[in-house]
């Protein structure tokens, strides 16, 4: 590595950082607009054309607001918690390939900050660190509502991380690599979302929980815990939480795009070949986020005990079974050849269909059901 390499690396970091900030800015605006649209409202209209600068305005406002430290707070932890919440969110994005590459000064510059062999594990590692910000913020505020929020959050994030990891494991087994660029390569023909649809669904649900988005926004749950872990935060420190949360949303959506939706792949004309993948990537991320906003507009907030039950009793067993199946799909043809495996799968599938048809008929009719 010579000086130019270093400069290019630093440049990439700066560009990605700034790009992420701008994306978050647009994303918040988009979310507010989309949900307003779904609620027959207009949403923000004042700052900038059709309110596009509203996030900037909010950010500036928050920056100049007084930051209050509660008397009961554990001061050092309280002050550092927002930073801890925000940093992993940014770091996680480092391994996402959001385009192909471009040649600058005679060097090839990939649209990805780093492509380590562990790839997706880096994202998981950073996601698991992100919980500290929330937990510490809740604990250090020295107040009851944040504490409840923090407890909820740590339980929730740890639980759903398992479900999320299982979904990712299935994809990794299917693609045969941890390296994100290779996973994107492997989707040149078929996007993973088709063979790995169950994993996709599990991932999206777990992703909602990981980013504390409705209907899984229990750590915040404004109607129960006021604002959950960040009840006591104000000013720029509150803004950091907000920022971290949305960067997380971008990351989760980006991972979904990379692992399931073919990453930056998409039809592209020959002009400016490096721009199109970028646009495709952005479009796919926005589509995923649109889906998240749509879910937010539709669903009520789930209750905490049901959330945990859903995570442990539905998502994780389902994920385990799916990992097992994926393993069978990947390994068995190598061992026994294609034909017998397909035949065996057909027999098992048929038996399952038969069983699912027969089961309701055999079961005695339950008495008066609730919530018809």
């Amino acid at each position: 590595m010579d000086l130019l390499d270093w400069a290019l690396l630093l440049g990439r970091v700066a560009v990605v950082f700034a790009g992420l900030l701008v994306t978050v800015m647009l994303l918040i605006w988009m979310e507010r607009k989309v949900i307003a649209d779904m609620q027959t409202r207009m949403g923000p209209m004042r700052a900038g054309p059709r309110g596009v600068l509203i996030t900037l305005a909010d950010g500036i406002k928050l920056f100049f607001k007084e930051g209050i430290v509660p008397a009961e707070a554990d001061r050092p932890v309280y002050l550092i918690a927002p930073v801890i919440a925000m940093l992993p969110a940014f770091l996680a994005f480092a391994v996402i390939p959001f385009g192909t590459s471009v040649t600058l000064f005679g060097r090839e510059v990939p649209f990805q900050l780093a492509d380590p062999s562990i790839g997706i594990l880096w994202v998981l590692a950073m996601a698991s660190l992100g919980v500290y910000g929330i937990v510490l913020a809740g604990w250090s505020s020295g107040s009851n509502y944040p504490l409840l929020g923090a407890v909820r959050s740590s339980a929730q994030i740890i639980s759903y991380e398992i479900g999320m990891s299982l979904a990712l494991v299935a994809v990794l087994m299917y693609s045969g690599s941890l390296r994100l660029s290779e996973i994107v390569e492997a989707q040149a023909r078929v996007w993973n979302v088709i063979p790995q649809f169950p994993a996709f669904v599990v991932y999206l649900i777990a992703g909602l929980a990981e980013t504390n988005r409705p209907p899984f926004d229990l750590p915040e749950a404004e109607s129960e815990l006021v604002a959950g872990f960040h009840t006591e935060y104000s000013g720029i420190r509150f803004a950091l939480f907000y920022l971290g949360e949305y960067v997380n949303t971008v990351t989760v959506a980006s991972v979904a795009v990379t692992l399931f939706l073919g990453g930056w792949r998409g039809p592209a004309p020959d002009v400016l070949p490096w721009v199109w993948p970028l646009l495709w990537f952005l479009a796919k991320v926005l589509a995923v986020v649109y889906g998240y906003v749509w879910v937010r507009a539709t669903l009520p907030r789930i209750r905490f005990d049901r959330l945990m039950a859903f995570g442990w009793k539905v998502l994780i067993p389902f994920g385990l079974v799916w990992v097992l199946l994926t393993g069978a799909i990947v390994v068995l043809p190598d061992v026994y050849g294609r034909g017998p495996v397909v035949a065996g799968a057909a027999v098992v599938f048929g038996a399952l269909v038969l069983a699912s048809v027969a089961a309701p008929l055999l079961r005695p009719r339950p008495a008066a059901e609730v919530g018809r």
Partner: protein
Amino acid sequence: MSADQVAFLVLAPISVGAGIAMLLQRNAVHAALLLVVNLVTVGIFYLMLAAPFLFAVQIIVYAGAIMVLFLFVIMLLGVDRAEPLEEPIRFQRTAAVLLGVGILAELVTAVRAGVGFRALGPAAFAETGADTAALARALFRSYVLPFEATSVLLIVAAVAAMVLARRRPAPATAEPEGVVDAEEAAPEEVGA
């Protein structure tokens, strides 16, 4: 001086410092946090030694899961208060010192002798980037029996912990508030 060396020189004092500070810290949450710092720096050392998989596992499992559970318990039970000073086990301190010295001696001898360690060096993995695959091969082919035995052991331990920690189901004549009364909970099921 290479970039790795610079990083090491910066991180090593932090790591050791965090470890020592953790021991000296009275506030349980602060101590746990310092442990997290220590774990993360160790993870970065793994990264510098070209063992990214180990790094990921270190962060995900130790820093991400175990320490969060620690914090969870500390916050939930409010253990961040002063503990009683009397020692439940007699000669605890003497035993601790003896054991500590013993382990130190063992470590020193082992490292000096280099018994059973084969220095592969980063280069062996960095070429192929295949440390994950090598690890998987070791775990799931060569040592699959011990691996499975360990997992069974862990599951047994987890189930046992759940059984021990479980509250006895409230008796049929539960009081209207639905609180489990202190007297009703048998002492032995409260977990040691």
